[in-house]
């Protein structure tokens, strides 16, 4: 038996013939022994990648399949919305903020309008408050379903995606019927709402309430008991309560770590303290718990919608103060949604003062007394806070949005370093970030 000394393909003679052993055998000599331990690979994931939930870029340091370092690069969707609001009047601000976190537009509108109303020192009529709760909870269901659908798709559960989007479509149809638009509604306005609920909406919502519980049960049948789904999510993206609080993480991620911190309960707004609902929690601190919490929150939102429907009383949906209230009785004309024929007849034919008011409101807007407020609400992703500063003029001096996606995304490194690269996807999907909100 002879051996050759080729450094790359040593060979030896055996009874079956010559056997080559291709080793690249001089690696030891060229790199030293440490080099084997430093099998380091830097991988850029994104910004265009089907599993990054939008234009998110991850810079991952890998050793084999293990992530040793995860850095997050954001900003690809920055549109300067905060700056833009400073050059529009207070009412126009609604149309900007609704485009930030595009999966929960009504939460952006509600928080912004509540901040403006707090600066103005006004309270919106009860019917408007109830409808705000109603549309926000429908929106929460739609948002959680997208979180589930895209998260499922990223993990290869395509039926979760198709079912999730199918169910979300029902919620969007409702929002379209109520507000006229599927997304970016600009429905909630400072002082109340753009318009009242259409007559047909209550029936449609009741129908939705009848269908949805079955669909949620279907999700549990499809996913919850499924071993692959469980093993992809359990013990993945682990972050406990102290980690969450240190990193500012709120929403389902914090509740899945066991802390029942929901602003609808702990700092109620819009009358949430009078509704009967639970704050679902889990104690697993992982992606599995977050999935269960979101599913349970869909059920709680259904309860809230049913209660909101029951307490709808006829009444105005905009404050009485004509110096602030935009016309809130719109109607569909041949050229799209606009002021109702009665309103136009009133301002054009009957009342000079009403015309002046309308003109001043639309061109100039109302003035908001100087000061600053911070209004937090519970969006589907956590604490959505609006820090709004007024200098007493017809435009905001500064609008800062504490977007929960932006803050929660900071937990990526803590959740995924030391794990497998495939689990990075599950961890980020369990945060459910929306890049429109992250980058604003």
């Amino acid at each position, binding site marked *: 038996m002879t051996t050759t000394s080729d450094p790359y393909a040593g060979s030896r003679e055996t009874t079956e013939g010559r056997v080559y052993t291709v080793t690249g055998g001089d690696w030891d000599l060229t790199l030293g022994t440490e080099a084997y331990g430093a099998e380091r690979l830097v991988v850029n994931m994104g910004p265009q990648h089907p599993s990054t939930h939008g234009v998110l870029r991850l810079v991952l340091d890998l050793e084999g399949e293990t992530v040793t370092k995860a850095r997050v690069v954001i*900003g690809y969707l920055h549109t300067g919305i905060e700056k833009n609001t400073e050059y529009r009047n207070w009412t126009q601000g609604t149309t900007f903020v609704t485009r930030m976190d595009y999966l929960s537009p009504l939460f952006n509108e509600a928080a912004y309008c509540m901040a403006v109303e707090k600066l103005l*020192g006004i309270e919106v009529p009860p019917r408007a408050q109830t409808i705000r709760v109603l549309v926000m909870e429908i929106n929460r269901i739609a948002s959680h379903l997208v979180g589930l659908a895209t998260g499922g798709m990223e993990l290869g559960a395509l039926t979760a995606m198709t079912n999730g989007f199918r169910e979300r479509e029902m919620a969007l149809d409702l929002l379209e019927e109520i507000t006229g638009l599927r997304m970016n509604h600009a429905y909630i306005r400072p002082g109340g709402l753009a318009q009242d609920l259409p007559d047909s909406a209550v029936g449609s919502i009741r129908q939705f309430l009848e269908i949805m519980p079955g669909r949620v049960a279907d999700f549990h049948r499809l996913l919850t008991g499924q071993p692959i789904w469980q093993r992809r999510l359990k013990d993945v993206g682990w972050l406990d309560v102290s980690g969450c*609080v*240190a990193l*500012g993480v709120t929403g389902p991620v914090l509740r899945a770590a066991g802390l029942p911190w929901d602003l609808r309960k702990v700092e109620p707004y819009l009358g949430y303290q009078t509704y009967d609902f639970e704050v679902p929690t889990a104690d697993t601190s992982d992606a599995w718990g977050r999935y269960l919490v979101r599913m349970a929150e869909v059920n709680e939102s259904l309860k809230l919608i049913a209660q909101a429907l029951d307490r709808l009383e006829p009444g105005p949906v905009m404050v009485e103060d004509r110096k602030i209230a935009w016309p809130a009785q719109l109607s569909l004309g041949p050229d799209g949604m606009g002021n109702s024929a009665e309103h136009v007849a009133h301002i054009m034919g009957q009342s000079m003062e009403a015309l002046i008011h309308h003109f001043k409101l639309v061109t100039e807007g109302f003035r908001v007394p100087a*000061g*600053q407020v911070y209004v937090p609400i519970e969006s589907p992703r956590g604490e959505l806070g609006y820090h709004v500063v007024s200098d007493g003029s017809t435009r905001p001096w500064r609008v800062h949005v504490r977007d929960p996606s932006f803050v929660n995304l900071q937990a990526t490194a803590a959740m995924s370093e030391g794990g497998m690269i495939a689990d990075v996807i599950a961890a980020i999907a369990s945060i459910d970030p929306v890049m429109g909100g992250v980058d604003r």
Partner: protein
Amino acid sequence: MTGPGDLERDDAALGAQAPSGGFRKGAFGVSGSGDTSGFGGLVRVEPGGAVALHSTERPYGGWFDEVTDALVEAVGQATYDAAVSRVLVDRGEITYFVAREHLLALVRALRDDEALRFELCSSVSGVDYLDSGGPATGAHRPRLHVVYHLTSMTYRRRIRLEVAVTAEDPHVPSVTGTYPTADWHERETYDMFGVVFDGHPALTRILMPDDWDGHPQRKDYPLGGVPVEYHDATIPPPDTRRAYR
């Protein structure tokens, strides 16, 4: 470009008499435009302005006094007096105006003291008050404010801290040692306002591209006009358009 509590530049003498507010001229924020509406000569005194210099006297009411007492006890009266220049209670929210030298001691006490327990730093952001923000003029105006919103999950309370610095010396100590969540908030505030957070682990731009010039959310950041295809016209930048103020 005008600021809250705007001082007309040619009315500096008038402005000096009213340090807590300012004056506005005309219905639109422009002068010399040949405005014949009759509002061109209108002079209004701003009621306070966004950064009214008045402070609230004690008692502040509600739990505000409790928190303030606990804070004094935690850091000591001398430090508190040196750190907190004034306190403002407005619309049910309390704001402590803090000197940057004492910020770190204050937030550490706010987080760790048993009677305070502000565990969550909800938000850190900037506000550029440009021409207002204090009796000092020109470069010495502390125009850049860094605003911290702290939440006590234990007591369900929220407070606001505000640190004001000048654009020439925009240094504020980083609170990331106490609140790791402030990491990205401070990067965003640096990106948008150019406030430098000393001690931040990696203060780089976060939303704008890495090679961007300037800090876009400063009020004197130039806004671009839009050229129009015909008549050699341009749509002026939004801050120079005729607009109600």
